[in-house]
């Protein structure tokens, strides 16, 4: 399918869940509603769209805006050789989104990393706990509200 018609097909199929689509410097972007994320992802992974690979999953903290966290997913279709970026906005008071660990196996660790760094919770994740930081670390380092140089030593350090 051509790029434009592919996006057209996707929008037609998931009209309720997709808020808008855009193109940013040659990358195709879809803005999806939080409630519809799992349905959209499952639909895109299956035929006929065949986005078989979850390339990346991350989060951006827009401290100043009302929807503070924005989840960004990059999925890739090997058969079409095409990438797609999907964005979901989450509010500050309830940063929870559906987990896609059941669809792609690497989402397990990627979501753990986002939970560790940003504090976003994933519903349905089999094992949500910290992955890069250690037990006893308070806070979520990549949030804009966490000071960059605040160290939390695990053992008493000499000066």
């Amino acid at each position, binding site marked *: 399918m051509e790029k434009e018609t592919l996006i057209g097909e996707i929008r037609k199929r998931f009209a309720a869940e997709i808020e808008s689509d855009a193109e940013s*410097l040659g990358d195709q972007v879809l803005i999806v509603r939080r409630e519809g994320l799992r349905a959209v992802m499952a639909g895109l992974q299956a035929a006929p769209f065949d986005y*078989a690979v979850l*390339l990346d999953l991350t989060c951006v903290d827009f401290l100043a805006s009302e929807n503070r966290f924005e989840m960004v997913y*990059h999925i890739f279709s*090997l058969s079409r050789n095409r990438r797609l970026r999907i964005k979901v906005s989450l509010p500050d008071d309830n940063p929870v989104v559906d987990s896609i660990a059941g669809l*792609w196996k690497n989402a397990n*660790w990627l979501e753990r990393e986002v939970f560790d760094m940003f504090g976003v919770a994933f519903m349905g994740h089999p094992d949500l*706990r910290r992955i890069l930081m250690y037990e006893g670390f308070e806070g979520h380092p990549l949030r804009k509200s966490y000071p*960059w140089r605040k160290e939390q030593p695990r053992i008493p350090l000499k000066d």
Partner: protein
Amino acid sequence: MDARIQKEARPDTMLINMGPSHPAMHGTFRIMLELEGEKILNSEIEIGYLHRGFEKTCENKTYFNLLPYTDRLNYVSPQINNLGYVMTMEKLLGVRVPERATAIRVLMSELSRVSDHLTCLAAMAMENGAFTVFLYMMKAREFLWDVIEATSGSRMTTAYIRIGGVRADLNDEWRESVKTALVETRRVLKDVHGLLDKNQIFLNRTRGIGTISKEDALSYGWTGPCLRSTGILYDVRKAHPYAIYDRLAFDVPLGEHGDNFDRYVVRMSEMEQSLRIIEQVAALIPDTAPAVKADGIEPAEAVRQGRLRKPGQRIRLSPNLEGSEKDRYQDILTRDAPVCVPPKEDTYTTMEGLISHFLFFMKGYGIRPPKGDVYFSVEGGNGELGYYIVSDGTDRPYRLHLRAPCFHLVSAIEQLIRGRFVADVIPTFGSMNMIGGELDR
């Protein structure tokens, strides 16, 4: 803190801890194994021991200033990380890079890739007992690093590939040193093929071990040599060509079974293909006038005399890195936009040069890309190395995220070692090429 495996383990099994201080090479990685005799029933991996806060640091540094941090991600192939970051920025800024700089970038990239695969296989072989292979491959790596050092000044983490081009042109004797590196590396590869390809011990330890199916590999988001060892053809250099890869002739080796031995074979073949690319790029880059000119003396001899610094001698070398003089600048750095440092001759002698130098480095000025976000990926030593940068119009990135290929590779290890023996963990883990800097960022 009780790890998950401690809670889940049966009371009659043994829990063994491997790491985080591994016998050198792999850095910091912890695997907790639940064993029944030698058989692994379950395992749990703990990472994060080399988490150095790369992404948070990048939010507090300017776009130019954070370049050395990218070197230290996949530290066995630093130039490829540089290239990924720089090309992402160039996509965001919309600048074009001169042809010669692009060719030099590809040359450095491929030298890095060979060095990455050499290190990975050397470590893997050493841990399986083939110490000679480790020594031979390290020797080959030295020749490659000689080329990189002569051009950029540093053997490893170079910060050589800059936004808009490269830091300096190749030095005058680069063709000989590249030729030497190719000859030595090919000799070493031939020796290693002879030592390992049909070696019964190596085959017993790697063939049929750590096997993964195509569907699982895709589900785990594997890319790079590990994915190609299962038989799936996906190479960013072929699928989304960047730099001058679309003009170069090279094959992408594929494996069959997706086991450790196939990963070894794919990496060995990829090294040969990278050497082929290096030869083609070396033929593409035209010769230029020598950087050091002295009457009646050969450039190499002039450089040697200039370094000796005898009193009263008439040869004075430029204090800049060889190949970064002003007359080379338009070949190696873009003039499209002020995204790179002006030449030193201008900075020290003209007012405009001084001002543009200051504006480049001053807080709040410098490289200020338009607002927006961008994702770009290159083929790293482990697979698709992607950068996702969100810019808010200021001189610092709002968010910089690295798509680390070995994060996805390593997340599959728990599945790969289940049901196998303890001794199988070593070649499986070794063939993944886990690099702590990239994994933990």
